[in-house]
């Protein structure tokens, strides 16, 4: 029995890395005493597959993992059991039973949506912000230098990696960007690129960012990975 489970990683856990999240999930599943299925081999582990990594320092409202159980359990009960033994800022939100042959999370999920709270050295009206965004997105390319750990810096074009951008409220910008195996965009890079164009944009702080979640892009819409069209029989 396979379940696709949505969870949020919030402020108190924002500095926990992707691998640490996986380790933590396994321990939560053990604490919840769920009938988890184990991998074969010398070093049996709980069978669990997680979506694309969430960078250290980011908060997310919608991450996913697939879990295999040996027996069936009501999805709502599953969520309740997990939350009962989980740190306050790691919250399980929804579980959906999925068929065996469903596409994996890593092959489905290709989009991350961020809302970023930009601050400026002098106050801006909503209209001014909308103009900034228009100007920002009207560029033919948005080149930025990506600093990579233990590797050389690389130049990349953010323009190709941003699917959509809008201003949803004063100071609140929403970006849908590529994530997963086809590349990714870091919120810090969006801040930097914007700052290069408009010097009045203030520097980056991880507390300004919320990852609304990861999604599957289909035409101009974004779907959760357990949407009907993926589960369908």
């Amino acid at each position: 029995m396979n379940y696709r489970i949505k969870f949020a990683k919030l402020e108190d856990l924002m500095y926990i890395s992707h691998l640490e999240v996986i380790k933590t999930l396994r321990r939560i599943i053990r604490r919840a005493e769920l009938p988890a299925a184990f991998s074969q081999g010398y070093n049996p582990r709980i069978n669990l597959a997680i979506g694309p990594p969430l960078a250290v320092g980011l908060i997310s409202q919608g991450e996913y993992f697939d879990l295999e159980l040996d027996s069936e359990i009501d999805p709502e009960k599953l969520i309740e059991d997990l939350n009962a033994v989980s740190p306050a800022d790691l919250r399980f939100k929804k579980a959906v039973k999925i068929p065996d042959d469903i596409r994996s999370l890593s092959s489905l999920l290709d989009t991350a949506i961020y809302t970023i709270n930009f601050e400026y050295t002098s106050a801006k009206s909503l209209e001014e912000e909308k103009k900034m965004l228009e100007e920002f997105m009207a560029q033919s390319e948005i080149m930025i230098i990506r600093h990579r750990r233990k590797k050389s810096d690389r130049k990349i074009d953010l323009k190709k990696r941003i699917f959509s951008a809008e201003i949803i409220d004063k100071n609140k910008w929403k970006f849908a960007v590529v994530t997963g195996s086809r590349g990714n965009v870091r919120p810090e890079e969006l801040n930097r690129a914007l700052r290069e164009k408009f010097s009045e944009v203030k520097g980056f702080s991880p507390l300004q960012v919320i990852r609304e979640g990861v999604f599957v892009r289909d035409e101009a819409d974004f779907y959760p990975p357990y949407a009907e069209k993926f589960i369908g029989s």
Partner: protein
Amino acid sequence: MQYKEKIIENLYKISSPERYTGNEWNSITKDWDPERLKVALAFPDVYEIGMSHLGLKILYHLINREDNMLAERVYAPWQDMEDLMKEEEIPLYSLESYHEIKDFDILGFTLQYEMSYTNILNMLDLSGLSIYASERKEEDPLVIAGGSTVFNSEPIAEFIDLFFVGEAEAFIITLLNKYQDLKAQGLKKAEILKKLNKMPGVYVPSLYSEEYGEQGEILALNSAPGQKDRVKKQVVQNLDQAFFPTDFIVPYRDTVHERVVLEISRGCTRSCRFCAAGIAYRPVRERSVGRLMELAEKALKSTGYDEISLTSLSTVDYTEAKKLVQAMTKKFSEKKISVSLSSLRVDKFSVELAEEVNKVRKTGLTFAPEAGTQRLRDVINKNISEDDIYSAARSAFENGWSKIKLYFMIGLPTETMEDVKGIAEMAQKIRNIGQEVRRNTKKRMRRIEVSVSVSTFVPKVFTPFQWHKMDDVETIIKKHDYLRDNIKGRSFSFSWNDPELSRLEGVLARGDRRLSQVIASAWEKGSRFEGWHECFEPRIWGEAFRENDIQPEEYLRERGENEIFSWEKLDIGIPKSFLIKEYKNAYNEVLIDDCRFADCHGCAICGNFEVDLELVGGRTNELQD
């Protein structure tokens, strides 16, 4: 003050930010009720090292169980975090409530190894406290310390207000309550300390002093009027019933021991003459199989770990080792929970036991022959023969292990180059046995690997070798060179300790109060984390010794039988005469056996402390058939 937002906002700039955020499962955040005594439990090394320390886990849960107290944790920040804290003006804070350390009533340090002393000073300083106890203010937290190097805490005596000597779990709550009472009465810190020093196990260093002669020798140890002459260490009686936590904090970050740790027994009476723990934690006390099973089950449920580690100074000496291990594997293997053992002895029984727990995963197996020749093993009273070692190795290889790690020491009393040669020969012989087994087996077996780890012997206080002269750096290097040249080839790896670092450890391990200044100088010059090879700078320490006019060699020399030692302000319950007798036995290569299974040798601990050996399997075990 709490600094949570400022901290969270800045942590993305440094490496491993999850060291500094807390919020782990099972961590305890109590309300800061004004009535509560607030204790910050500090470990003077980084998070992942400190989080693995069992003693702190016990104290954390023990204190938090009390309604009128709370305990929170703090670890040493790594250099990048220290820089960030200074730049952003963030003081050292606790991981639970993010309160700065100054807000606490008590700051308690765990002393685990000498190489963490500068970190203690750094943590005091980052808290905004003076490093010297005498300069701290009335409203500053009381700085206390305890743990395994408390038995010679003199080098840090100037920095600490109060030491607790011995096993704290039976006594810490009484001590904290007493402190709270005295404080509520409005007494000044100096008065409070005088009163606390009258309690068992409490050592207030400012109430004691050392008198030096012209040559720098210690003439006398003095105590303040009305205070006890010597401080008796405290021992837990009936370990089986003693408090032991099961709701361990579960870290996110990889730490040294990410598993349920069960202390199956405390103390060891094997009487290895170099071993500090073997003297300091006497007598042997064991927990019962029933109690351990109950603790294991609770802890697994509470933490979600998939491994149990059975720890003690010598796990196979636990009198019901086989029964315990079988019961554990039977009960937990279905849930895919593995059991691991620490501190195996070099014998066939250990291999059998390891085989029992390690039915699937064959990783490495570690043996500690300690010395390369039988003569030297007799000097240190290791009580294992050449035969034991080779048959243990053979049986390990035959059971499918292909990697064996061997621990040795150089610089033991009476050692000659013959003994050093013996280390290389033993390593080669074990490799040969492994290769022979591999050639003749039908099973698939990985390539044989023997790794040899050699540390430099550091004489420790309250051991029969506390009089011994430590090797000088040239001698250590000569021995290392010999071993490097003779333990070569694809199947070997050889590792050793930095000789300069071992020497510094040697100085601090048998040091006195005069070293406080040296440690302070080294810290001021930027020395931190000496235990981390890459952080240790001998140059800084050289300068620190010179500036304070201290000759490190003075602390490493052979000591005279009638010398007064700085650490003799403490009474660990074993008379000096026993240690001297054992030192002489070493030179005469006289063996003594384990008093658990044979005659009493008169170390006097049981009589002095009115304690008994607590052996759950009676005075025999599977070893004695």
